[in-house]
């Protein structure tokens, strides 16, 4: 069966598109063309080296604000605008995901993976500066070292706030973070066979090791900085004893340390992370989640044995030592990633549908800071539609993340009788085009212009044949779906949806009438109506909702 061995076949448009759909939020046609002919290794290397680690900062998008169009993270904290500025920070991230101007990168899709792994939410945390620092921590370390990432995350002010780490004190522990650190962040509650990975007493012991961490200036109006502190007096200095799941490890309680040396909190945290990472199921837990994110939510015993376990061994091998980037490269260039059974094996998440459609149909992102009002219109639309479809970015309903990444059914969870309606409503907006992003920028697909671009010598009606229904369908569906439509589906789309039972020759007649007189409303409407019907149906097809 397919495994982690390198996939060496030169990428075709289909396999290039597969890689881009999974590693990014969805490709443009130009990106697919650009990746066709590369090896998987070359393509993934580009996706990594294209990452921009110093994007321009978020901008105040409110045109009625005195600081409209300006940066806000460099200004004193403004509590009255906490929601708005937090939302603009989120729109800023969506902008990075959606941009078609920058070359394609895998960084933000992987950042979203980690954000859904180490969940903290704008609603739960509040302070937009905390959320911004947390997001940068995820983004800057997404391809870095997992040990560093989880260690920093434990001390991150947003995470301390979200899981009550700052309220975890000697004598009165708050176990919230210690539990999720094991259950969700590193070890997993149970192994693949269903055995428990740790005990309740391990949760309590970990909580005691984590006592004493605090943050400053949370939502303090006018404050210009904030930081994490370790407070010796709030730290539990006794030894922390763990169960046989952790080979009966004892983390020695540290007394207050002299200044200038690592604090007791740092030392015990390092011990704790080392112990948790040494759990035999920790690397499998992480690799399984990555596999479900990038390859297929369905993990069989054979996949566990042939892919997850070897990948976990690679992750923890001395040479790799928990580095993330080589694991991502290995997975995205593997035979199993490109295996035909894994093509289209995931239902598009709302962000893959929403941002992916914006990218695929070249809906240009308004440029910050100048075009901030249009930027806001664009991303308010994207965000609130994604919220309807059950994926509000940076606002998961619980620390477990979006249900589709852990619940039985996995990515199927995105689809039900109600969300399917919101999905139609979203894709219909590309066809009926009601969103005015700014004057002269109507969001959506200009189907007439697209059809016109497919027509050679548009104005030469007598000398150049009209494009056929088949050519038109081929044009509209190029790289649109993960696999080729069946002949019966193609006939149905042309004869039933586009032509509504009329013979295909009627299309030639109507299209040529439009070519002769593109400004005549009657001729224009006739073809526009057919093309809109077709495009609307294509985007409502189940096939469009696979990734």
């Amino acid at each position, binding site marked *: 069966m397919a495994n982690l061995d390198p996939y060496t076949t030169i990428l075709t448009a289909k396999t290039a598109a597969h890689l881009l759909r999974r590693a990014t939020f969805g490709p443009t046609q130009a990106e697919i063309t650009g990746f066709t002919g590369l090896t998987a290794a070359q393509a993934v290397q580009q996706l990594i080296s294209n990452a921009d680690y110093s994007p321009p900062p978020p901008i105040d998008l409110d045109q009625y604000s005195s600081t409209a169009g300006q940066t806000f993270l460099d200004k004193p904290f403004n509590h009255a605008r906490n929601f708005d500025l937090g939302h603009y920070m989120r729109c800023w991230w969506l902008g990075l995901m959606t941009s078609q101007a920058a070359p394609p990168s895998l960084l933000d899709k992987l950042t979203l993976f980690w954000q859904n792994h180490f969940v903290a939410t704008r609603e739960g945390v509040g302070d937009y500066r905390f959320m911004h620092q947390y997001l940068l921590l995820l983004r800057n370390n997404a391809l870095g070292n997992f040990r560093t990432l989880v260690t920093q995350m434990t001390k991150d002010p947003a995470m301390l706030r979200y899981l009550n780490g700052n309220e975890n004190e000697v004598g009165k522990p708050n176990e919230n973070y210690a539990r999720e650190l094991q259950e969700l962040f590193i070890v997993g509650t149970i192994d693949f066979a269903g055995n428990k990975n740790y005990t309740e007493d391990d949760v309590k012991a970990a909580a005691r090791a984590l006592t004493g961490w605090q943050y400053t200036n949370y939502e303090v109006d006018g404050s210009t900085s904030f930081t994490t502190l370790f407070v010796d007096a709030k730290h539990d200095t006794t030894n922390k004893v763990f169960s046989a799941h952790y080979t009966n490890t004892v983390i020695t309680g540290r007394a207050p340390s002299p200044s200038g040396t690592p604090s007791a909190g740092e030392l015990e945290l390092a011990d704790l992370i080392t112990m948790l990472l040494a759990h035999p199921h920790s690397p499998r837990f992480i690799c399984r989640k990555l596999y479900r994110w990038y390859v297929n939510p369905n993990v069989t015993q054979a996949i566990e044995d042939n892919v997850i376990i070897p990948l976990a061994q690679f992750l923890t091998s001395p040479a790799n030592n928990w580095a993330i980037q080589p694991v991502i490269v290995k997975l995205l260039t593997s035979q199993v990633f490109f295996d035909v059974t894994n093509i289209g094996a995931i239902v598009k998440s709302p962000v893959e549908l929403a941002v992916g459609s914006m990218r695929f149909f070249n809906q240009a992102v308004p440029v910050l800071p100048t075009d901030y009002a249009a930027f806001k219109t664009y991303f308010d639309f994207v965000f609130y539609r994604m919220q309807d479809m059950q994926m509000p970015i940076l606002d998961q309903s619980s620390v477990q993340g979006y249900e589709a990444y852990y619940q039985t059914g996995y990515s199927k969870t995105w689809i039900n009788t*109600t969300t399917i*309606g919101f999905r139609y409503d979203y894709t219909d907006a590309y066809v009926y085009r009601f969103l005015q992003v700014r004057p002269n920028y109507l969001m959506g697909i200009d189907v007439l212009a697209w059809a016109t671009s497919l027509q050679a010598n548009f104005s030469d009606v007598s000398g150049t044949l009209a494009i056929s229904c088949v050519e038109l369908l081929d044009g509209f569906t190029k790289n649109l779906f993960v696999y080729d439509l*069946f002949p019966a589906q193609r006939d149905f789309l042309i004869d039933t949806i586009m032509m509504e039972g009329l013979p295909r020759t009627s299309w030639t007649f109507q299209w040529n009438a439009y070519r002769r007189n593109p400004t005549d409303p009657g001729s224009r409407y006739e073809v526009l109506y057919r093309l809109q019907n077709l495009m609307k149906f294509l985007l409502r097809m189940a*096939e469009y909702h696979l990734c």
Partner: protein
Amino acid sequence: MKRRDFLTAASASLLPVMLDGFGLKAMSRQSVLVQSLLNTTALASDRVLVIVYLNGGNDGLNTVIPLDQYSLYTGLRSNIAIPQSSVLGLDGNPATGLHPAMTGMRNLYNNGKLSIVHSVSYPNPDQSHYRATDIWMTAVDSSQTSVSGWAGRYLENQFPGYPAGYPNVQMEDPLAIQIGYLTSTALLGGQQSMGIALNDPDSFYQLVGSGGTTPPGDLPCCDAGDLIAYIRKQQALSVGYAGEIKRAADAGRNMATYPAVTAKNYLADQLKIVARLIHGGLKTKIYFVSLNGFDTHSGQVDQTDVRLGSHADLLGKLSTAIETFQQDLTLQGIEDKVVGMTFSEFGRRANSNNSKGTDHGVAAPMFVFGSNVKHRTIGQNPDLANLTGQAGSKEITMQIDFRRVYTDILNDWFGAQHTTTNALLFREFPTVSLFSDTVETVASGNWQDRNVWTVGRVPFANEYVKVNAGHTLTIDRSVSVKNIRLEGKLMYTGPYSIQMTG
């Protein structure tokens, strides 16, 4: 064949013939015959269950407060304990009170429409949100897993083959509806959810439309083919049910006054939709609603007034929502058709933490509400002098296994065969007499031992009692009951008697 089964079969097999080839659906609502037949079958089978999920693990000890052990209670949680004078008293039950925010549920209790089921949990409890939620929703032992939910298995048993061939003449409405956007594990059948998600009945029809042309059914291989088939089926179901939901939503009417939108009582908003759909005649069996925010690790009480705060807000919303819903059903005249139950994945620890919050715990009370509940109290207050766990983590131990409540709902509310219920719940669980006037014995033992009784406590003087065959009860003091039916034996240790009050 039971009467209602016969009628269902009859309406299915005879009507198309009698109506000269027109399907029941084509004639429905206009035809007196169809209407009367539907009503007849409905009478026996139109019972509805509303499941209320309190997401996050509700702090049971600040919800149902043991007034009989008040000083132990405050000793465990001095920073969040509700002042004794603020606790809402319950008629005829001085030992127990409710959180001051719960006036609505106190009223229901006093009117005999609310059962408090004390200290509900299961053996070897789990304290992970995800796993514990799964255990409650799939109704398994904590050492087992199941891909299907308990309510989903019941519906699958009643409506085999779903969703293939649905909606159909026998069941033109969704089997289960979750108000919201996702369907919960509790409603999962063996393959997929037996329910549908519905956020707003008014916009649902508009959103999914009235359906269009059916495309060819070609499928690619492998997981992609499975996913496409699944999405197509959801498309078809949403369209198939949209018309019926719209009809019910248009026909149904709320008669009670629900909290204003500004109150942000999302549970009341959801129950308002449920009442409207039931009143509108939707034949959906199970509704699932939820209220988030019970994971109160921190700041569950207000900084200055412990009677207020985030937990009080949640309990206030819960109580108002349920009382208003019950009033609505009463005014609509359909109170007898509906029963509701609350559950949460676990209770919280008996002792509070330093952040004026509580960490994950074990047992907590469930509430069952409706005009059909027969006992206001099942089980008794947790014994705070004998909690499990060391200092720093005092846990409330289980009295009632949650699957006993499910058992009564399946057997006595939905009328499932006992053998079916036992199979759906993977084994037999004793009744807690939720829907029965009579308190029965479950074992031999001392009359005063709560464990010998179905209701998990000694029978009250106003309750019927049945001593089951094979059970011998020792009586070491005089007792009062309403009436007693004796199929087993009584053994008196002295000159004691049983006083009949009825």
